[in-house]
């Protein structure tokens, strides 16, 4: 009996130790994942209270449903930031927002629309939104609160979110693209004026055995999209906004010389084991949530990355603006296009034409809600009444001043905003295939062109 009792105690101790170890490891993993967020949510802030008051004013006199369903592409820390804003709507208007974030949003929304059960609101790409607008499935927001939209957003951005003269979508977080670097480890040109300076620097560092780029591509079903955005930046800065838009609208074929050249320039820089941290395979395998941490790691495993304004948020607390992370605008190949910038955002569209959906979208477009979102330090916002000083982060303040307040910046649209779901998917998969096998470029471009209908 004593032996059995001792044996049982040892077994219990072993199990307890295993459980503790598992809990510790889980905690570490959660910590690592949580480091992607720098949001500073506070329901006590004045911005939150103003957003609640705005929601109350919008809901006043309207009979709204107790809840609405929303699907977006942001999950994790980014999804939480958006839900913090939606809390203000819930508190002010009494409508619970059932938000689901998934990287697989295109397929999820498509399957629900096909099943006749679309979500009330979906945060989707402009190209996909246009597709639904052509099918007559989206709510006309101009009719609902058109004058507010005109007050709060620039005409060109409203035009990009419109179909047949009607605004169909509302912008939330807005992202631009820039070249991020760590001032402590960066050896490249500061504020270069030509893309060739970046290429020369990359080659010089590679000759010394130092890969300088972080270029993680693994994003689950949407793997390859960071590379796609890299290629679009190269294209815009070389060929300008007119050809860029034509490319996005399908008028410029994917098999054209210009598109092929953009792919090849991306390939020369990134599809090269000597230039990218971890090699090309490492870049393909690295998840985007952690694959850029090398920029601010100690020691840093890369010196630069060309990607969106969300990079510091993904890296987490080790990305200290001005100290371990800073940016400059992507230099142009053709100086004519140095002020042309592409941007990345999604549009929140309404599928169900009712008072609740319209009230929610009106709230999202309102200055109060956009100020609160800006104060949460995740993304810049496009609302013209949101001053740069509102952002807690100096990086976001700088981004807002550079890309929004600065009159010289021209925001352009191309495939990342205009292409439909099939072309975007083919583009992302094409980038992965190209990175795996650069000699397959022609075949890759043909397969993307085949997806363009």
């Amino acid at each position, binding site marked *: 009996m004593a032996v059995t009792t001792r044996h049982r105690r040892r077994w219990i101790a072993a199990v307890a130790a295993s459980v503790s170890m598992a809990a510790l490891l889980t905690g570490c993993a959660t910590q690592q994942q949580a480091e992607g967020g720098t949001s500073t949510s506070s329901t006590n802030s004045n911005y939150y209270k103003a957003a609640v008051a705005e929601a109350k004013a919008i809901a006043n006199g309207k009979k709204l*449903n*107790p*809840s609405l369903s929303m699907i977006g592409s942001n999950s994790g820390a980014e999804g939480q930031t958006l839900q913090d804003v939606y809390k203000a709507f819930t508190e002010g208007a009494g409508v619970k927002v*059932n938000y689901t974030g998934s990287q697989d949003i*295109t*397929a999820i929304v*498509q*399957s629900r629309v*096909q099943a006749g059960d679309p979500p009330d609101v979906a945060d989707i790409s402009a190209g996909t939104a246009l597709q639904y607008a052509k099918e007559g499935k989206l709510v006309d927001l101009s009719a609902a609160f058109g004058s507010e939209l005109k007050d709060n957003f620039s005409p060109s951005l409203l035009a990009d979110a419109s179909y047949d003269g009607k605004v169909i979508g509302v912008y939330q977080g807005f992202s631009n693209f820039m070249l991020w670097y760590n001032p402590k480890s960066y050896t490249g040109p500061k504020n270069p004026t030509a893309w060739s300076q970046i290429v020369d620097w990359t080659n010089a560092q590679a000759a010394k055995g130092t890969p300088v780029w972080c270029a993680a591509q693994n994003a*689950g*079903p*949407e*793997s*390859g999209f960071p590379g796609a955005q890299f290629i679009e930046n190269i294209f815009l800065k070389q060929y300008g906004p007119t050809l860029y838009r034509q490319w996005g609208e399908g008028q410029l074929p994917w098999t054209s010389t210009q598109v092929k050249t953009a792919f090849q320039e991306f390939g020369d820089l990134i599809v090269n084991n000597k230039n990218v*941290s*971890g*090699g090309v*395979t*490492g870049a*393909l*395998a*690295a*998840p985007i949530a952690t694959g850029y941490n090398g920029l601010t790691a100690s020691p840093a*495993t890369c010196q630069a990355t060309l990607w969106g304004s969300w990079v510091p948020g993904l890296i987490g607390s080790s990305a200290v603006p001005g100290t371990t992370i800073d940016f400059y605008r992507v230099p142009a190949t053709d100086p004519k296009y140095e002020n042309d910038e592409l941007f990345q955002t999604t549009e929140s569209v309404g599928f169900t034409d009712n008072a609740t959906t319209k009230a929610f979208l009106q709230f999202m477009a309102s200055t109060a809600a956009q100020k609160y979102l800006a104060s949460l330090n995740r993304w810049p916002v496009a609302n013209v009444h949101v001053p740069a000083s509102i952002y807690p982060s100096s990086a976001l303040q700088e981004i807002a001043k550079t890309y929004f307040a600065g009159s010289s910046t021209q925001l352009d649209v191309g495939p990342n905003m205009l292409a439909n*779901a*099939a072309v975007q*998917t083919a583009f992302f*998969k094409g980038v*992965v*295939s190209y990175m*795996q096998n650069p000699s397959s470029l022609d075949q890759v471009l043909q*397969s993307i062109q085949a*997806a363009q*209908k």
Partner: protein
Amino acid sequence: MSSLIDNVPLLIIVGAIGIPILVYLILGASDRIAGMLPRPFSRRVRPWVWLFGPVVLIALVLLYPFVSTVITSFMNANATQGVGFANFVWAFQGTMLDVIGNNILWLIAFPIGTLILALIAAVLFDKVKYERAAMTLVIMPTAISFTAGSVIWTQMYSYQPPGSTQIGTINALITLIPGVQPVPWLQTPFVNNLALIFIAVWLGLGVAVLILSAAVKGISPELVEAARLDGAGEWRVFRSVTFPSIAPAVLVVVTTEVIAALKVFDIVYVMTNGNYNTDVIANQMYNELFTVNDLGKASAIAVILLVAALPIVFINIHQFRAETKS
């Protein structure tokens, strides 16, 4: 209506209690009415009264979608115009050939891998005292959905470049061996397909072991004893007595896994979405249906999968009938 859908307790009451009560009432009332008819007539009508509901359900859930899918497979993307066999021709050319090639690899490696491991587990576990604990360990992954299993193994296979800290369990373990470099399991051609197949084996092994274990326990001990008395070793006993005796169960396992290999989707979609030459036909069907929005091609793939699975279904039915007769 939306408040009804959001009310989970109400939905549970309707689904778990309301629907069974409704079915019971309908069947009871129908049976009463049939009972009121003249005797010979009521005896003939009564079975059809009971069968009516299930037949309607099968017609709605199976027959109608089947017919609709076959018709749509001969139509264009919007299912507005006929295109003949164009969709089927598309399904057997170009990049689809690589996709079909991957499915053929799944059709070979997945059933064979599962069968071999299940046979080993079923035969050996039968001989040890800790059979229950061993069986529990093998069966546990069966409780995990394919999607959840894929998420787990995505982390297990995670790759960091050589010299970096490996956060994937497998690479963390193998790099403990001096001189061994981490392996990009999901990015290396052919290896990645085997890595995905292994996950399916891990998830499906439990059910296969259960089936084969029950069959092994059903072998007459006298047969085995007789073979041993004749001087047969363990391998000869397995080959000549055990395996032939459990052949029907082996056939069930193989045919089940072949059908699973034909329709594998979750693992590929979650882990690679068909990238790195891992695409399979079911993933391609999902892509055509929900991304490209081509109903014709998606339906053609569904019909091809059905036709490919039919021989397996017939083999199973034939086997069940043969067992019933014997």
